[in-house]
């Protein structure tokens, strides 16, 4: 199959970018979207040009490295699918595709389709953990966890941190990402002692990183490759409000602002 690509090319964070047009010819319909880009890149290098830079690693939809916009959709048109698991059989010959990096103030472009998502790490640093030093854990079966709650915690914990939720959100909000971690840990008995400070700390960090506010568009849920539900955002709001009303503090778990 033959496709026309319009790809965002940008040399670096402080350089201007532009859309460039490329022809992808003779693409096998069973190849993945990234394999199609590999073919395009081989051609570019052969012609002495710089290949299109994009993040990718596991190519099986779990590491969260890959992701860009295809015709305005984060990870492309297929639900519950990262771009590495999107196969060309879902497109047709002659299609014209626009590829752009995640767009968010908190995710500055590194090069072409690569962005800096370290703001997510800084949200986790503000409380996305259970403080249990190695060696101090009790015997595992001393803490029964009802299966329903454990399963629900898993549903939240399945987040791969790809950033599609932020990229698709008209506000560039990180509520789905943040709520997934707050809910994963807040649903488990082990996560209770730090539940209040976690919710407060992570919400403060999220705001400090320059993410937008949540207006319940639910675009995030629609594009999430792991199908994480916006119910977790409601949970985050409850935990945050509860912690505020209880007069809890986020403690020392403060991190620097800014996306760097």
């Amino acid at each position: 199959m033959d496709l026309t690509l319009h790809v965002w090319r940008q040399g670096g964070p402080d350089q201007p970018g532009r859309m460039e047009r490329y022809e992808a010819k003779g693409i096998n319909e069973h190849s993945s979207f990234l394999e199609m880009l590999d073919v395009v890149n081989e051609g570019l290098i052969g012609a002495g040009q710089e290949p299109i830079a994009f993040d990718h690693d596991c190519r099986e939809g779990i590491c969260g490295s890959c992701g860009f916009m295809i015709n305005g959709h984060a990870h492309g048109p297929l639900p519950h699918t990262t771009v590495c698991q999107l196969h060309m059989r879902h497109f047709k010959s002659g299609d014209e595709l626009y590829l752009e990096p995640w767009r968010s103030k908190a995710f500055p472009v590194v090069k072409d389709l690569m962005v800096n998502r370290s703001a997510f790490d800084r949200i986790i640093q503000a409380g996305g953990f259970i403080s249990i030093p190695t060696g101090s854990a009790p015997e595992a079966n001393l803490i029964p966890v009802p299966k329903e709650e454990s399963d629900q915690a898993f549903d939240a914990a399945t987040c791969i941190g790809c950033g599609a939720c932020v990229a698709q959100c008209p506000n560039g909000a990180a509520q789905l990402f943040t709520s997934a971690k707050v809910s994963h840990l807040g649903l488990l008995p082990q996560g209770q002692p730090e539940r209040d400070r976690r919710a407060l700390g992570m919400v403060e960090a999220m705001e400090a990183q320059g993410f937008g506010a949540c207006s319940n568009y639910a675009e995030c849920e629609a594009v999430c490759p792991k199908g994480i539900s916006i119910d977790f955002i409601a949970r985050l709001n409850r935990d945050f409000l509860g912690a505020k009303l209880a007069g809890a503090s986020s403690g020392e778990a403060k991190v620097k602002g800014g996306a760097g």
Partner: protein
Amino acid sequence: MTSTTTPNSAATVPDAKIPPGPIDQKWLEHKNHLKLVNPNNKRKFEVLVVGSGLAGASAAASLAELGYEVKCFCFQDTPRRAHSIAAQGGINAAKNYRNDGDSIFRLFYDTVKGGDFRSREANVHRLAELSVNIIDQCVAQGVPFAREYSGLLDNRSFGGAQVARTFYARGQTGQQLLLGAYQALERQIAAGKVKMFPRTEMLDLVVEDGRATGIVTRDLITGRIDSHAGHAVVLATGGYSNVFYLSTNAKGSNVTAIWRAHKRGAYFANPCFTQIHPTCIPTSGDYQSKLTLMSESLRNDGRIWVPKDPSDVRSPDRIPEGERDYYLERKYPSFGNLVPRDVAARTATSTTDDGRGAGAQKNGVYLDFSDAIRRVGEKAIEERYGNLFEMYDKITGENPYKVPMRIYPAPHYTMGGLWVDYNLMSNVPGLFVLGEANFSDHGANRLGASALMQGLADGYFVIPYTIGDYLSSFLGKPVTTESEGFREARANVEGQIERFLTGQGKRTADSYHRELGKIVWDHCGILRTAAGLATARTKIQALQQEFEQDLRIPGGAAQVNQELERAGRVADFFGLADLMCRDALERNESCGGHFREEYQTPEGEAKRDDENFSYGALWEWNDAGHESTLHKEPLVFETVSPSQRSYK
């Protein structure tokens, strides 16, 4: 250059430092005698941890909790993306929650036997002991393992084990364990005890006065070359399955860190011990960039078969029962479809080599769930394997509820790696190696659900004890990058980058990698022969020369340059590929994942030669152009007696 000479060049076999005493007392006694570093002094030591997967992240977090000053490096944009994240099946632990007769001894025994008696007893026993602590630690971190309705932890039997000792988190156990370690790591980053360097690749090890004193790195965004000094260097950089180009590993997984450490004097042990996983999706075309694993738990319910008649091209549902060969059930009646990975992979290869493959390209075997669906219903199968079926459908466009899956073996894990002693220190003092990057625990074949166990045992529970023993004698000795050793290593790194960028060739690094991988797969894959391995070495060396002369890398050094990154990694895969073939040539026996066609029983099973090959093969690097030197660490079996593995 005198200060970065190869250490121990006079020594032959380094001391493995295996403690004396009964097998179940070795680790306990050893811990009691390891030297300690006073809590107030720990902050005076800098430890460099390279890699942020299960082994690296757990080590970095645990060492920081103890008080050491840690720097952690990963090439990905965040430590959470290391390839441990992709492990599906589970993690073994000898908890015996099922009351089915499991014990530390049994897990130890199964692992030694599964490794075809080519691993160290003492290391494996320690691994089995620590397995129970790992589960406790991970549960306390909030890892959402599968649970029963009672709220207690669930287990399953995995990879043919006779007991249910595998803990799992749906089909995403690696992800959940890694996120647990990542969160512990981020907590230490927030506390200022770990300084994290994402998108940073280690390109050389600095060895001064025979000790590892630091690393040289490249910032993958700016291209800046940096020097980092430390009292100890910990490599947790994973395995080298990508030497085959097509493997289940992530695209970025590479051998560079351990290979460059090898070139600085660290012995590379058993490089030919590679694991080919039996259940992966077959290739579909030459554009293919990687292979995808289908968890081996599928073999619990799926039946493997091929058409009896090689000329049979009918679709699988039209092939009647009597014309199918369920070859695993036929050859191994007691284990059937649950034989260990090496046996399953080898039989799949010999079957398709006979021309009896599945599908239009005849490049796979069928994994059929129709009997299981009839027996327990589609819903029950969906509950067990739903995410895997969905993934298969996504990749192939075929619905495995309706048509049998097609599967084929693919490179998945490497048991070989840098040699380490019982303290996980290499023969270069101060250089520690953890997880898949070392050679220590899996012998010639790794059992399912044991990789996660080893990575976390090494990082959470071994290195925090053993590193202090080494560090304690360096108290009050500051580290510096202002030395001849660092200058030389930097110059080495910069020189290589410059050579790459000034080349005026035509071919891409990837095109060489693909060709190299094909050679290694054809001759040093599942089936190996002396003639094939010798041919492979000639081909590899010829291709390497071409690579050095005809390579094209656009762009410059001071920028994001993914082609430059690839070129460096491919260069190292060339060296490793040659050493793998050499190692496979020297090992005139078949064991585990290493199957030499010349050495098989009349029934076609692996024929081990304990009299002559019961050793770890330790390879010492000699300068380019000279063959590596082989040292042998004899394996001593005090507790179990090596037997022939039989799964009939």
